[in-house]
């Protein structure tokens, strides 16, 4: 199957105009050329599709890994955000323990303790020592 460029095809058509190439021959050339172009395009699409599939697979692996890692470390969030989360947690769970806040909100202990002390100073919460 021979593949022609656009210019070559124009040239053949011009020849056909001048009756140097029969219409049958021209159709044959055109048909072959269209099929060849389609096959090339299909091949290109298939290659791009494979590349996309590989990228999606990689992203899925990365996402899964990140999801696992997120659960394995304390969350790194700004102090203000942590403070409002802690306030919300305490209002929903009055009488909760410091360790429960750390565990359930997955926040670093030193940050939680610092924020709890701040909230106590501001009069937002009341800390009780367990006897």
């Amino acid at each position, binding site marked *: 199957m021979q593949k022609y460029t656009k210019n070559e095809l124009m040239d053949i058509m011009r020849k056909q105009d001048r009756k140097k190439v029969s219409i049958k021959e021209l159709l044959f050339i055109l048909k072959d050329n269209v099929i060849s172009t389609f096959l090339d395009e299909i091949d290109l699409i298939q290659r791009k599709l494979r590349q996309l599939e590989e990228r999606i697979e990689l992203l899925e692996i990365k996402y899964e890994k990140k999801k*696992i890692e997120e*659960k*394995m*470390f*304390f969350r790194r969030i700004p102090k203000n955000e942590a403070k409002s989360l802690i306030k919300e947690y305490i209002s929903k769970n009055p009488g909760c*323990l*410091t*360790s429960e806040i*750390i*565990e*359930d909100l*997955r926040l670093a*202990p*030193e940050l939680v*303790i610092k924020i709890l002390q701040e909230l106590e100073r501001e009069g937002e919460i009341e800390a009780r020592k*367990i006897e």
Partner: protein
Amino acid sequence: MIKDLREALKIARYFVLYDSYGPYGDFGSFIPLSVEYNEEKDRWIVTCKFKKGKEQYKAKLEINAIDGRVISYKIIEK
């Protein structure tokens, strides 16, 4: 398989406060200080502090990430 920091902390807390092999720390006194996962050994290492009576302790626990058992417990500060 324990792959969640929260679960590791709950195991450590339970051990420190209630487990018959643990120190029977005072209720509510358990505070985790650090948690890390050792990928090579498949273990969680939890450092915590707790109170027992008037004493305050700092301890280090190693938890098997495969079955969730506490495999080592050591007081590192009193």
